[in-house]
């Protein structure tokens, strides 16, 4: 029955091939594949040679699955598929028959061979678990094609196969690995998202903290200043001795509280990484002298000799943050005053090392005070640490001063440390790294962006500008503030050009670029604000004129905004005469040594 069916297929295929006279090749006609076959027997040697040369396991079979020839061994031995061999045998699949049994109807190879014989396809490639009967234990890839030859009047089909079990396992492993990678990626993305969220929350908290600090600095300091001010006034007036004692207690407590708040603010800023150091040229000798003079009143009437010495090897000019350097020295000297009842306090400055562009400077504060037990020496630089409560009661202080010194020293790429002997005195060391001031370097840095203004004169501290008075452009839209600032500056010996908006400011800067020494710029103005005016001035190439912002905000962010717009410095509002003149004086001392944005 099966044979008859197979013959029927062959008969359909062959006459078509014969009619067209084809000797080779395949032709698809009306969607069916037709074989134009000829007898393969005379070509068998060639077929064997060809099949033997290819790597894939390949066999030629007839529609009954009978192997005509194969390039692989049968499990039972022998290379050539003889007339008794079936493809199933080569493929190690039971029932090793002609594919007609019911299990074979499920076999994809049998199906593909039938399709090829019936001309429904030019061939088929597929992968299948193998064997199709029973439990598959490997994966196979098949390629089944009709070929234009026949044997004994039966069409021939080429069947190639390859065991791809390893490949599949690798593929499967790769897929698993990919899935794991995807999972890991998802987890990473999720972690990143969480990290971003945390960073955002931290940033928000940081901003909130900055705002809180700003408010605190204003809201607490303002009433405290009022308390201190009223105390001073009352003490100046007629009060009896008892009231004076009470007033003094209030005054001292308020000062201590103010100092504590300043310390906490400084400490918080440093902890939050918000403390930015200046990088400006300064004269270390002048700084040391000035600092000692500031400390001198704290000695009161104690028999103490306060002296200072700066070694000749210390450069005449350094580049760094003189304000923060002074803060550290004031703290160390202040402590020395506090803990020394008689004898001496001396500040000595020496050069530790010098390189091409930097110098390490050591400040040493030595006193003949009460001293510190050696085992406590390292603790005193920890925040809120003092030797003990009785010590604190006797000497006051917040316990933050030295911690701030240590942090500031770190910011200056340095350190603070101490040596001491109880009853003999203490020596505190403060080491910091500063830039070396070079006129040539500064001039080079200014050239190309300058407006023709000269570099600093000898020692970089020209003072003739201040002596002759400066020409200052004041940009302030508020009439009262403008008038008041003008008055302050004029009384400080300066000449003031006051304008009330950005456009007028640009005109004055353009017209008087050669004469102007300094610009004081209100930041918040209607129309063009101070930041924009500054940007335009800098865009005009006028980089040599110092521009100082006057802003009601004094937070780091505002300062950064001012500096990045091209301003050199900033002054907090409300304006106060001493601070205004000090700032003007400070910038006037630089002559043409003006840079911004660094």
């Amino acid at each position, binding site marked *: 029955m099966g044979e008859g069916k197979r013959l029927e297929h062959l008969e359909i295929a062959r006459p078509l091939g014969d009619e067209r006279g084809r000797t080779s090749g395949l032709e698809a006609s009306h969607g069916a594949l037709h074989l134009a076959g000829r007898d393969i027997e005379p070509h068998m040697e060639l077929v064997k040679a060809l099949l033997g040369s290819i790597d894939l396991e390949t066999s030629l079979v007839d529609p009954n699955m009978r192997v005509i020839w194969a390039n692989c061994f049968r499990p039972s031995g022998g290379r050539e598929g003889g007339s008794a061999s079936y493809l199933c045998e080569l493929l190690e699949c039971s029932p090793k028959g002609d594919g007609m049994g019911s299990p074979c109807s499920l076999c994809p190879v049998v199906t593909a061979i039938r399709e090829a014989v019936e001309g429904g396809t030019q061939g088929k490639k597929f992968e299948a678990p193998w064997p199709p009967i029973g439990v598959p234990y490997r994966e196979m890839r098949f390629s089944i094609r009709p070929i234009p030859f026949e044997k004994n009047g039966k069409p021939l089909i080429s069947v190639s196969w390859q065991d791809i079990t390893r490949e599949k396992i690798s593929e499967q492993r790769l897929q698993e690995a990919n899935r794991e990678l995807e999972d890991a990626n998802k987890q990473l993305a999720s972690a990143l998202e969480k990290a971003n969220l945390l960073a955002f929350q931290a940033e928000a908290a940081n901003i909130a903290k900055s705002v809180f600090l700003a408010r605190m600095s204003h809201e607490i300091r303002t009433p405290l200043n009022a308390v201190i001010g009223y105390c001073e*006034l009352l003490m100046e007036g007629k009060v009896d001795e008892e009231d004076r004692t009470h007033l003094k207690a209030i005054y001292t407590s308020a000062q201590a509280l103010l100092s504590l708040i300043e310390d906490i603010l400084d400490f918080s800023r440093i902890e939050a990484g918000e403390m930015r150091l200046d990088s400006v040229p300064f004269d270390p000798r002048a700084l040391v002298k000035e600092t000692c003079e500031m400390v001198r009143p704290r000695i009161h009437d104690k028999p103490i000799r306060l002296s200072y010495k700066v070694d000749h090897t210390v450069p005449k000019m350094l580049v760094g943050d003189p304000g923060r350097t002074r803060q550290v020295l004031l703290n160390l000297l202040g402590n020395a005053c506090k803990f020394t009842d008689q004898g001496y306090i001396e500040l000595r400055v020496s050069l530790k090392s010098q390189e091409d562009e930097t110098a390490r400077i050591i400040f040493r504060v030595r006193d003949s005070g009460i001293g510190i037990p050696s085992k406590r020496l390292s603790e005193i630089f920890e925040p809120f640490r003092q030797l003990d409560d009785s010590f604190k009661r006797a000497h006051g202080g917040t316990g933050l001063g030295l911690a701030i010194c240590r942090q500031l020293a770190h910011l200056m790429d340095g350190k603070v440390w101490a040596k001491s002997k109880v009853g003999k005195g203490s020596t505190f060391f403060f080491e910091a790294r500063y830039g070396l001031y070079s006129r040539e370097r500064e001039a080079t840095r200014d050239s190309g962006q300058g407006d023709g203004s000269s570099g600093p004169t000898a020692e970089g501290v020209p003072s003739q500008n201040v002596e002759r008075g400066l020409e200052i452009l004041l940009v302030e*839209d508020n009439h009262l*503030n403008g008038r008041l600032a003008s008055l*302050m500056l004029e009384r400080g010996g300066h000449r003031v050009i006051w304008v009330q908006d950005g456009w007028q400011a640009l005109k004055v800067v353009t017209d008087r670029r050669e004469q102007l020494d300094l610009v004081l710029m209100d930041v918040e103005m*209607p129309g063009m604000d101070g930041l924009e005016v500054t940007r335009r001035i800098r865009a005009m190439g006028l980089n040599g004129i110092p521009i100082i912002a006057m802003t*009601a905000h004094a937070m780091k962010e505002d300062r950064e905004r001012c500096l990045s717009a091209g301003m050199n410095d900033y002054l907090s509002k409300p304006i106060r*005469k*001493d601070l205004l003149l000090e700032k003007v004086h400070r910038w006037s001392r630089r002559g043409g040594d003006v840079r911004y944005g660094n």
Partner: protein
Amino acid sequence: MEIEEICDALGLEKEEFVEFARLFLDVAFKDLASMEDALAKGDMRSLAERAHSIKGAASTLDMEEIFILARSLELKAKRGEGEGIAEELEALRKELIRLENGIGEYGHEKGLKLGVSKRELRGGKEK
């Protein structure tokens, strides 16, 4: 208001400070009128600008109550919050009047000797 303290910070004689305070009042009353007008027109931007102006000057002269009111007005105007502005403008007016009366009394008591003339204060550099 503690005049001595603020005078010291500003580098002014007391009489000069009083003159500055009068100048402040002149401008502030005009600003107040402008703000009332702006509120009626719903022009919050102008209102904020005028409040900002008063705030800046009040801060310099350390007039705390006026500063606080002006700051609040500026904030509300910038946020477009109309509610409460009329009341705060009225409170500001009262504070300005209180300051005016205080200065009048002070000037009367001291007999002002001006270190800087009114003409100079209101002089040519004003717009």
